[in-house]
């Protein structure tokens, strides 16, 4: 499903007349890629790690200093040790963002995650705030960014309550000269906690995209 959505988005981006897309938005990007994902779960003093590959897609649309950003990813992770059942990981994110300074962006929006195993689904829903700083290493070509986020509110269906979440991201973005193509390499760590439980998702993700950043 994610692949289909990504394909449709890319095709729309390519076939939209430039003039029309410029009227709609002066910022429009679409991208997608894959990530090596590591899920570390700590419950009742026991820690288990699971790993896998997930596919994701993201996009941004906006005008001036304001834009909306969305991301979706899906995949499965398997226990690193033993022969336990794999878990499907599905995650979605929607952010309203504003460029506060030329290098600083802040945003807020919902973030949902689901871990599905046969017979049950663990759900997390956060309302997050994000702060992102970006600095160019080579003007117009290569930049680095760092992002941290924290949940203002968090809900989970895991018994016990007291849910919270925070995390961070760092990475590089490379842009081809005189081309709307870009590539991105990032490391993301995201922790969700509730009473007696901690889940940490780490991703090293490589993506490529198209559009005016």
């Amino acid at each position, binding site marked *: 499903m994610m692949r289909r959505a990504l394909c449709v988005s890319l095709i729309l981006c390519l076939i939209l007349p430039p003039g029309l897309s410029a009227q709609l938005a002066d910022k429009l990007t679409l991208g997608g890629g894959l990530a*090596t994902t*590591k899920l*570390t779960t*700590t419950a009742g003093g026991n820690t288990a790690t699971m790993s896998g590959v997930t596919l994701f897609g993201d996009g941004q649309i906006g005008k001036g200093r304001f834009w909306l950003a969305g991301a979706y990813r899906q995949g499965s992770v398997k226990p690193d040790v033993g022969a336990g059942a794999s878990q499907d990981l599905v995650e979605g994110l929607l952010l309203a963002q504003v460029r506060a300074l030329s290098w600083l962006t802040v945003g807020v929006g919902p973030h949902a995650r689901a871990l599905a195993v046969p017979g049950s689904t663990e759900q997390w829903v956060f309302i997050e705030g994000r702060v992102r700083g970006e*600095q*160019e*290493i*080579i*003007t*117009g070509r*290569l930049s*680095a*960014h*760092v992002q*941290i986020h924290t949940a203002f509110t968090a809900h989970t269906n895991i018994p016990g309550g007291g849910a919270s979440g*925070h*995390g*961070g*991201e*760092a*990475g*590089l973005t490379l842009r081809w*000269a*005189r081309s709307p193509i870009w590539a991105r*390499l*990032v*490391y993301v*760590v*995201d*922790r969700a906690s509730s009473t007696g439980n*901690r889940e*940490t998702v*780490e991703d*090293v993700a490589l993506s490529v995209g198209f559009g005016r950043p």
Partner: protein
Amino acid sequence: MTHSRRNRAALGMAMVVLLGGASRLHAQNSAELLARGMRSSQNLDYDSAASFLRAALAKSGADALPDTSRNRALMFLGATEFFRDHRDSAAAVFTRLLVRNPRYRPDDLIFPPEVASLFQDVRSGLRAVAIRVAPVTEINGPGDRLAVELYATSLHEINAGITRAAGGPVRTIYHGAIGDSLQILWDGRDSSGAIADSGAYLLRVSSRDPSGRVTRVVEVPLDLRTVRRDTLPWPPPMSDSLLLPEQRPGGGGGRALVTGLAAAAVTALLPAVMANGVSGSGTRFVVVAAAGAAGVFGFNIHRHTQSIPANIAQNQALRSNWQRRMDTVRSENAARRGESHLVIRAGTSREGRP
């Protein structure tokens, strides 16, 4: 009173009468003289009529008869001479009238058939052409021409051409027969096809008899002025202040290095800061290495002068735009230099030397 004294007295009286009559004739204006001449002719007083009409025709300057009245005076004078049995004089007067206006015809209600018949005989035997041309003609483009109307007394051969006033042919416009009238056109070019230079020219029409001998020439002075169109001014040179810098001087390498290394450090430390108790994925060191390498690479790049592609593109667009304007002006000026605007002023028709 002796015989000689009587003679002297008679001579004196005659002188007084003659001088008095002459001075009366001289005192009247041309219109009055014409009216009296026509009245005398209608009253069959042909001698007086001839005197009045000749006096009217002799007026010049501001009191000269206008063209229409002059033609009328000549017609009445010719008829008067005819009735005075001066047939040759009548023919000479009619010739004079027809040379002035080949299209003139006597009014059948005023002049008897004998007069009309003589007039017709003179016209048939006369080979003369009158020229009518607009006082000012402008030739702005390939379709424009100087239009010349020719009116002939009778069917005969003519040559029409342009010559320099100082002598020398420029171009033959027409060679052939003319019946009643003919329109000829001149495009302002000489026989080689080039626009004629500014200067004084003559439009000459020669009438020929059947043997080819030139019997009469009529010419109109032409004053040609070649006016070339003004060229457009060149666009002002493109100011350097409009151009953006195309290269960035070396520097800023330290910031690039710090940024890359900071991104690497954050990536390395993120698990410890954000996920206490988790060792962190070893795969993240790919990002650590990439960020560190990017910082070093950026540091190295920034030590040297860098080109600024966006500025180069914008400057190129400005230069192209300026060059397009230059090319437009250049081609327009080239076209304008090739265009000549010709003004032809025609003078009064006159008889020329064959």
